[in-house]
């Protein structure tokens, strides 16, 4: 059994640079594509464009919108050594066809595909879903500034 790892914090993955405001009301797939584009420069040199887009598109089919209206498309890559994330805020939101839930915040999370890292991966998913509750999402949707959004999430 792998014991719980400490050191999981949102401030390590969320900063003003990786918060993206998406205007309009894109579909779920379009929103994920925009976040993947924003993710590409952060993992360039580690993961190729095609590999990134293909893998995200593949796992995206398996991911589900949470009851809170928050969405975490996530994928694991053996090339990575740590978490990489891009947060999308969609003030107008979109309606998920599968669940009928309104989505106004989503985060693309990439994790290392290593057995030893899986516990931390689970902890991060748990922490994200615990943090992004409807009240926080309401507040984020009312903002316009990535720095303010990052500060609201990380408390800094």
């Amino acid at each position, binding site marked *: *059994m*792998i*014991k*719980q790892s400490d050191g*999981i914090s949102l401030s390590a993955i969320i900063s003003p640079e990786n918060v993206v405001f998406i205007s309009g009301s894109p579909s779920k797939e379009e929103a994920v594509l925009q976040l993947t584009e924003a993710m590409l420069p952060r993992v360039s040199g580690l993961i190729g464009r095609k590999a990134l887009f293909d893998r995200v598109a593949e796992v995206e089919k*398996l991911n*589900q919108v*949470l*009851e*809170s209206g*928050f969405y*975490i498309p*996530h994928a694991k890559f053996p090339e990575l050594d740590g978490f990489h994330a891009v947060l999308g805020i969609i003030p107008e939101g979109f309606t998920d066809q599968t*669940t009928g839930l309104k989505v106004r915040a989503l985060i693309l999370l990439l994790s290392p595909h290593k057995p030893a890292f*899986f*516990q931390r*991966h*689970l*902890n991060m*998913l*748990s*922490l*994200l*879903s*615990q*943090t992004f*509750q*409807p009240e926080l999402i309401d507040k984020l949707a009312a903002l316009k500034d990535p720095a303010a959004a990052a500060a609201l999430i990380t408390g800094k």
Partner: protein
Amino acid sequence: MVPNQRFKQVFVLSTAMLSFISFWKAASVVLCDFGSSAYYAGGIAMKAFGPAFPWFILGVMLFSGLMLGVYTESCILFVRGGVYVVVREAMGKVMAKFSVSALVFDYALTGPISSVTAGLYLGGLLENIMPLLHINWHVPGRAFAVVFALIVTAYFWRENIRGVEESADNNLKIIGFVAVVAVLLLGWSGYTLYHRGFTLPPLAPVFTEEALGWTVHFPWLKAVGIIGIIMAFGHSILALSGLETLAQVYREIEDPKVRNLKKAVVSIFIFSVLFTGLLTFISALIIPSDLIAGKYAENLLSGLALELQGPYWGRLGMQVLVVLSGVLMLVGAVNTSFVGANGVLNRVAEDGILHDWFRHLHKKYGTTHRIVNIIAVIQVVIILVSGGDIFLLGEAYAFGVLASMSFNTASLIILRFRRRDEEREWMFPINLRYNNVYIPVGLMAVLAVLLSATGMNLFTKKVATIGGLAFTAVFYAIFHISEAMNEKKARLYAPDEDNEKLNLRREADIQTVVPELTKDRCVLVPVRNPNNLVHLAAVLETADDETTDIVVLSAKIAKGIQSGGETMSEEDREVFSAVVLLAEKYGKTVKPIFVFSNDPFFSMAQVAQAAGADEIVMGVSGSTGAEIQMERLAMAWGMLKKPDAPAKPVLARVVWEGRQMTYQLS
């Protein structure tokens, strides 16, 4: 926080919250039926074949050890066994229907013979006490016994309609009390024998014309030698009633099931030999033969108490104890006859050979009231027809006991060949191994004895033969017609095999169930597929029932808003039937919960957090795989976790054949 608006109906399955019992309690449940024959078997046997009766009662009780061994093997093979299941598996439905019809005949007689005997013992005691109280009233023994028997039957009819189950605790207290009385009686009898000396009873049975039955017309069939022994054995076999109760109670025995079953069987055997066998034997040594045949014929153990060496008040006190213990045990046997017959007929009904009309549930109490009513009516008729004549009842008894024991033993022999590859945790001894088959020499010898007694009883016990065959024919016809009607219905609707009536309780919220979880640890086991319960088996195998609540959760996907009108489908019931069977197999208590939710992981996390679960154990999903299951659970877990929730470590496990994946939820 995320509100609960998507978490819909919660159903709690209460039939599966079986409280498993220790081997002591299991033994006491069986003994309340099995041991009660001590109060009447000796007197009936004496009437049939004279002073040799104690040898044969003792012999039958020693033979009970072999029969307990036979039933041990069949219980281990079938957790939910009993003669119907065992015979159906080995010989098919026709023979199973026949054997269960015969068995129901004996259940119908167990109640009357027990309640009438209790009435006779009580009447005998009152007859002795009345003069001491200066009440000049002669107790009319048999009439009093009939009235008493009717009251007892009415009482247990009402209890069974209301579904009030006699707890195994009560059985244990009764048997404890009976054991104390038996020890006192044995001790005092020893003292009496020491003072008076004794002569051993004769070995040769001397049959009355009535006890010879139709064999009086066959002079060549002399009631001597081995024939006489078989005849006398057949007249004494009624002391063996109650073995079917062992098969019924096995499902409730706690883990480790087989070891506890063996302990229960040994306890039953020792108690029976000492209580029924030895006390009956000692009665014959102490009570003069003419008194056994006359004054004490209907209450032999009261006679033993009254004929002991000592002052009258002491002997009367001993009689009070004997009667009190007897009434408690015999009255318990009346209840067993209701519960046993109801259980057997329900088992048969589950198999589609009893029309659904019989299984109709009482509107208020949820019991199968029509079956209970039928049993009560039959017992009342038998009590009235007997007129309190215990010998008439004894004459009719044992047809079903012998038939069911013979069928059960023959079935086990057949299953040794038919299911030769099945591992058995225990086998009835004396087996010859040939290739991969254990030829059951021991079982065959037991069957030979049983068939001899069955065959002989058919000729000697006229009332049993006529009554038993008529009753069996009627019940067989009911089963046959029911089956034909059910088959017709099955062609119109979906078949409903192995379906059991689930006792469901609807709750508005999971929080109302939480106070019922009182043990130190809690393990949540989500289930979905009745054919994929490897993970539940793994939990049941290792969990300590004393300290761990095992909550089995089935979440059904129900899209849309809460309507409150969702009901369980047959597939859902199938899952729970499989869960109940598995829990019974391991002898561990589970609390099955069924919820409607639009996300199974959401409901898992919610139930686990509400219940304060220490562990969540999932089976692997063929469509997503273990890693994705873990990810979804982790997200649902985090989403529902309250910020102020205690940082309690909760393990999440995915278990599949030979492998498991374990992580900790944060």
